[in-house]
């Protein structure tokens, strides 16, 4: 058990004149309430992953747990949420696991009750494992070529430490329920969780409700993050370019996002992938065009465009309750100091030299 000093920090963070209240509870749980005019609200829980901890024998377990836990009470919550037109969604990414609810703004109690029901320890049956492993097997058929190449790039860079959290369906079908229950207990760690509510809400009232509901979640000693070790930075799969970055609030990350978006704007059928992980991550830009491996572009020419696109990309996330709750949640679960506004500040002060360095990193990944 981690002992957290009584750093009950109640800090009102205001930026862009949007009322927003971040609260850190004594158990380490970070809460965020934000008022944004919209006919619906989003309430989300984010559980930070421990970087590099998925192994060849367990990768995909978080994904399988996400599937199982999202079916809390056998679908009773889905029925209730959907009757209001809302949705409960879940996602497993490299940076964490999330459960995200969207509901009309009058239905906050339903959202919070559902999240509280998910965040419980419970017994997992072999039937649930089998059923959801089968669903993941079918989910795999919908994965795009782009997603697969992004996965390849991660394992090229980090080997087993870069394994895709999507997992191996064959491995998942044979997962022991007890192993999954143990992993879920570890994930239910208040110190590595954030709960975010964004919508047309009273932020003080929402924060009070969140405190009452979730103050009892335990803080646990988190597994120590593994230092991600880069194996190889060259020869990434065809049609993609990679830049290694640090924290989401590093200037180099802002530069890589700007350069990546600018490069993508010049490529046909382009895509860009970024997992905002606190320690190490990759920005990956690519194209579905076959046989494209050259970047005959002038970074100087792309600098201003890249800055604009990066700023608008972050801005756009922050204008929608669902997207804002997601971006803030995925950052806050990893560290209560991570804020999208810091990303925006970095983008605004980005220098041409930083941009060119990031561009050259993408270009160099093909050598």
């Amino acid at each position, binding site marked *: 058990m981690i002992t957290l000093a009584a750093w009950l920090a109640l800090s009102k963070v205001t930026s862009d004149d949007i009322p927003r209240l971040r609260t850190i509870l004594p158990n380490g749980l970070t809460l965020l309430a934000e008022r944004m005019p919209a*006919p*619906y609200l989003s309430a989300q829980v984010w559980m930070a992953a421990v970087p590099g901890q998925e192994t060849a024998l367990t990768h995909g377990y978080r994904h399988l747990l996400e599937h199982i836990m999202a079916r809390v009470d056998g*679908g009773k919550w*889905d*029925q209730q949420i*959907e*009757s*209001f*037109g*809302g*949705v*409960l969604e879940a996602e497993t990414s490299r940076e964490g696991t999330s459960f995200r609810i*969207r*509901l*009309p*703004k009058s239905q906050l109690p339903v959202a919070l009750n559902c999240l509280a029901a998910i965040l419980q320890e419970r017994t997992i049956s072999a039937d649930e494992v089998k*059923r959801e492993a*089968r*669903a*993941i*097997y*079918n*989910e*795999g*058929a*919908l*994965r*795009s*070529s782009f997603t697969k190449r992004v996965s390849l790039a991660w394992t090229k860079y980090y080997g087993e430490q870069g394994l895709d959290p999507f997992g191996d369906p064959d491995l998942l079908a044979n997962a022991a329920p007890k192993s999954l229950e143990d992993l879920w207990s570890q994930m239910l760690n208040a110190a590595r969780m954030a709960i975010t509510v964004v919508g047309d809400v009273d932020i003080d009232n929402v924060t009070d409700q969140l405190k009452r509901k979730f103050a009892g979640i335990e803080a646990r000693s988190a597994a120590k993050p593994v230092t991600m070790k880069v194996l190889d930075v060259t020869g990434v799969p065809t049609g993609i370019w990679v830049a290694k970055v640090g924290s989401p609030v590093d200037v180099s990350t802002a530069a890589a996002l700007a350069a990546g*978006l600018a490069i*993508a*704007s*010049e490529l*046909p*059928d382009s895509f860009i992938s970024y997992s905002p992980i606190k320690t190490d991550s990759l920005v990956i830009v690519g*194209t*579905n*065009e*076959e*046989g*494209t491996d050259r970047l005959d572009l002038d970074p100087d020419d792309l600098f201003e*465009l890249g800055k*604009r*696109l990066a700023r*608008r*990309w972050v801005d*756009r996330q922050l204008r929608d309750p669902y997207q804002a709750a997601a971006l803030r949640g995925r950052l806050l679960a990893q560290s209560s100091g991570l804020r999208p506004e810091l990303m925006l500040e970095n983008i605004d002060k980005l220098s041409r030299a930083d941009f060119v360095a990031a561009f050259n990193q993408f270009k160099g990944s093909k050598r």
Partner: protein
Amino acid sequence: MISLAVLSAIVAVPAPSPAIHELVTSTGSSYHFAVVMSIPPEMDDVRGALQEAVRLLPDGTALHRRRSIADLTSGRGVQAWTTTDQVVIRATLDSNSLTDAVTLAYGLIYRPQLEPRDAAEFSPGWYTPLWQRLTRRAPTANETRDAWHYLVRNGKIHVVFSGPFATGQAQAIWSGLTDSEPPNTARVDRPRPDGFPRFPAVNAAWLDAPPTANPSIAAVTAMLLGQGKSSVLFRVARQELGLSYRQEAFLWPTAGGWQPRVYLTSADPLPIAKLEQLKERMLAEVSIWNESDLQHAKQMLVASISGEGVWSPWMIGPSGGAFNTPEDRTILEAFCRAYDSKFDANAMVALVNAADLDAVQSAAKAWLAHDWQVITANPR
């Protein structure tokens, strides 16, 4: 089938003018457009070339390079896709300039770049164009361009612009462009029957009912059959039979109205026997629907029309169902205009609320009476 000589004669005449529609909004600063182009039936055997043109369309126009499009759309780009019998183009611009939006729409229709580039692996995504099962080979660059120009000359085109502008302004800008950048009148040869080389790496099965221009009952039925995790399809196809990860019932836009469609994808081939078992189970579920189920579906649907909910039966494109956003309202309007209708949210809510259980159950049974169609592509 119309002969080549007749088609060549048709393309020599000037392109017909598209119908321009305006949805003026009082709020927001972005401009949206949606283009819906009906595909003439005689193009059925050149759908591969047409699909290739649609794939290349977002690359740029003679008036806008790719970079400029990325800038105008904040990196979102232009989306273009095909439905059963229509080509759809949409974009949202943050440039605060209606002229940019109108010029981009105009350029995409009349001045597309259509520079050939290698065919990518086809995305195994959710809404795979169904014509692809018929295809054989890659179209040439000329076939691709000819298919596009033929479509522009012979398909009915509806363009909807929305955003905070004065009534008549979009039409005026469009008319100015027609004068300064008149549509290309070069002769267009009819493309040869062709194909597209790639297949989606996914197995899909679908079941269609005839299109309807009055889709309120079909919309409620779609909610109960296949929208959400409480729907019949999720509970039976995914959870009970383990057939699929994604499965939905929705209304698919066609030039004649909204076509009810059940659709599911699987990692494994989908044998008809298994699909018939699914249909049998679905019919059993339909027969026990009650007033509470009906109410549930109506609430979901009304919430989506009002903007509070996320479940929508109006499947407008690759990104999914239509919601009450300016972008989606623009394209919904374009689809409805294509069959001489309008999307009236209040009237739709009234019709949905008036739907009774017998009518919905009957619609579901009639829908499920149709046969399954299956694509098995890139089998493992």
